[in-house]
């Protein structure tokens, strides 16, 4: 499934769009950044409750396909700017982490 298809199927809005035609190869969830650096894999969608600017650096370094914010969280202006510069896809789910994951599982992940 591509980022665009995920967006269409869930109605989760885009906070930032990069290349939305790239495929999502799996899901990673984590809020401890060293854990995410150690265990996340290229192409995965990353679910996190973190919203500060360093998540963009991590998504870029790990080559995640997108970040999924939870609980309707937003990015501040500065972080949005960094996301735009790095062409990072960011969506936001209105659900908590568990319900967000359940939705993804129902979609076949």
């Amino acid at each position: 499934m591509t980022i665009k298809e995920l967006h269409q199927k869930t109605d989760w809005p885009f906070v930032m769009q990069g290349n939305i035609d790239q495929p999502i190869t799996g899901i990673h969830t984590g809020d401890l950044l060293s854990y995410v650096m150690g265990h996340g894999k290229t192409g995965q969608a990353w679910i996190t409750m973190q919203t500060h600017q360093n998540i963009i650096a991590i998504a870029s370094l790990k080559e995640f396909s997108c970040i999924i914010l939870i609980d309707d969280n937003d990015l501040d202006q500065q972080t949005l700017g960094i996301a735009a510069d790095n062409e990072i896809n960011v969506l936001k789910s209105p659900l908590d982490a568990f319900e967000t994951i359940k939705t993804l599982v129902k979609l076949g992940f």
Partner: protein
Amino acid sequence: MLIKTYELTADDFTQAGSISSDIRKIAKGYGMSQETIRRVAVACYEAEINMIIHSHGGQIELSIDDEWFNIAFKDVGPGIENIELAMKPGWSTADVVAQNMGFGAGLGLPNIKKNSDTFNLFSDPNGTLLQLGFKRKDTL
């Protein structure tokens, strides 16, 4: 051959990851394998964050020869009190501010060691030196 030197300011979270990103781009430019580039990115990010969170700042030096891609992280203190303890997964002296941002899981140094081909860590109260080496070509 020294390729590039970066200056790093302590406690400046706004720039965190930018040096690692640049080093990753350079590694790509040298045609290193995807897998090695990924390891370079993880190790550099953790080392860069450690300098921001735990040190008074310093320099990061990138050097290259025919076989190796080397990165030295040099800071000006306060040093690591007990390196053996610092290497233990889960051990951290990070403050609450860093923890709330998701740093300070105590996994950085173990992650760096796991992802690098050579790993040397020296520390005293005047500074910490972390030398990492990556083989430019994967040996089959």
